[in-house]
């Protein structure tokens, strides 16, 4: 249970602050975002406890997370999330992808003054899931946290998908960070 990932609490407080301001400026948009935030909280509080969730639920969770990020910054950020899944009802470990996405925002988008991007490609069949995420980052930025989240993910993958997964992390010299995860179902 303790290995399961939790979204950074600052994300919630910053999002609440944005909603606090937005409520007056654009009520409709604020309401939509409140729904997304509720969905996210419900998912991480309840579904995260389950042994399995559907791929569909995981995808929605990531979409909500990214939509809430999109509203935050003054700078423009390039977020792409391409999904190619023939059957979204396949079961996966809950909160499987969020750590990787959160890292991409934390080390990339939050640290770059401009031109930040996060590109995600998710391909799934009933036999295999492939998740690729890449983001740029500031090469001068000292890396503060030593990947507690990623180590946590590695341990969970070991437990749930023992000998059935591959996690490949590439830190390219051209300021692009890539993670590829593939899982055989």
């Amino acid at each position, binding site marked *: 249970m303790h290995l399961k990932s939790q979204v950074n609490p*600052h994300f919630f*407080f*910053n999002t*609440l*602050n*944005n909603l*606090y*301001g*937005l409520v*007056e*400026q654009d009520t409709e948009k604020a309401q939509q975002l409140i729904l997304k935030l509720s969905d996210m909280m419900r998912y991480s509080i309840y579904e995260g406890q389950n042994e399995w969730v559907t791929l569909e639920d995981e995808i929605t969770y990531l979409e909500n997370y990214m939509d809430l990020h999109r*509203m*935050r*910054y*003054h*700078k423009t950020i390039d977020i792409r999330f391409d999904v190619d899944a023939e059957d979204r009802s396949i079961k996966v470990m809950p909160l499987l992808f969020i750590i990787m996405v959160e890292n991409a925002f934390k080390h990339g988008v*939050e*640290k*770059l*003054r401009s031109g930040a991007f996060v590109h995600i490609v998710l391909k799934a069949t009933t036999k295999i899931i492939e998740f690729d995420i890449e983001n740029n980052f*500031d090469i*001068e*930025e000292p890396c503060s946290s030593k990947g507690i989240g990623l180590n946590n993910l590695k341990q969970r993958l070991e437990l749930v998908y023992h000998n059935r997964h591959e996690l490949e992390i590439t830190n390219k010299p051209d300021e692009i960070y890539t993670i590829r995860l593939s899982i055989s179902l």
Partner: protein
Amino acid sequence: MSITYIIVDDESVAHDIIKKYCAMLPGMLLMQDCYDAIEAIEYLHKNSVDLIFLDLNMPKLNGFEFLKTLPHPPKVIVTTAYKEYALEGYELNIVDYLLKPFSFERFLKAVNKTFTDTSKPSNFPSKDVNEVDPKSFFLRTNNKHIQIVPDDVLFVEASGNYCKIVLKEETITVREKFSSILDYIPSDGLVQVHRSFIVARKHIRNIEGNQIGIGNYTVPIGKLFKAAIDRLLK
């Protein structure tokens, strides 16, 4: 008569909230929106301001690193979602630390604190460009915010969930409990003389029996507060 400020925050809605709050106060003048510390450094290189609203988590240079680059920092109110850096902030002499999201009341308290704090006079904006009484503060009544000079306060009277602030020229009512009113007005020279009355010592005309004459008013002295009055008379 104005207080100049900039906002340093990478989230645009955070700017909107602060601007809206400042617009409710007289004399607050926005000089620049800065979306990261680099922009703020560029601005402050050529200009000076009285006050910075500063976020901490920003690209390249975080809020505290930014502060350390300023040879003569103006007053700073930190606005952040991070609770854990408050201590470090106070070491850097910030005036207040606001946790997002924050209410207007909390914001107002921070602004009042900024310009009633006399312990760091060197940081206060130069007198030649504005005539703000450094000790003046804002109080909210209904939808208005009234700027008050501490000298004008004669006494404060409790009235249920409200307090009456009796000034030389007028009386204003604020929705604040008596027990916490001193969080909003500077307490220098104020003496509590009754369960429901705090008076400004310097405006006392006379003390007679269990009554104090102050301005054109008469205020009762509470039994429990007799000793405090006796001390005044010595």
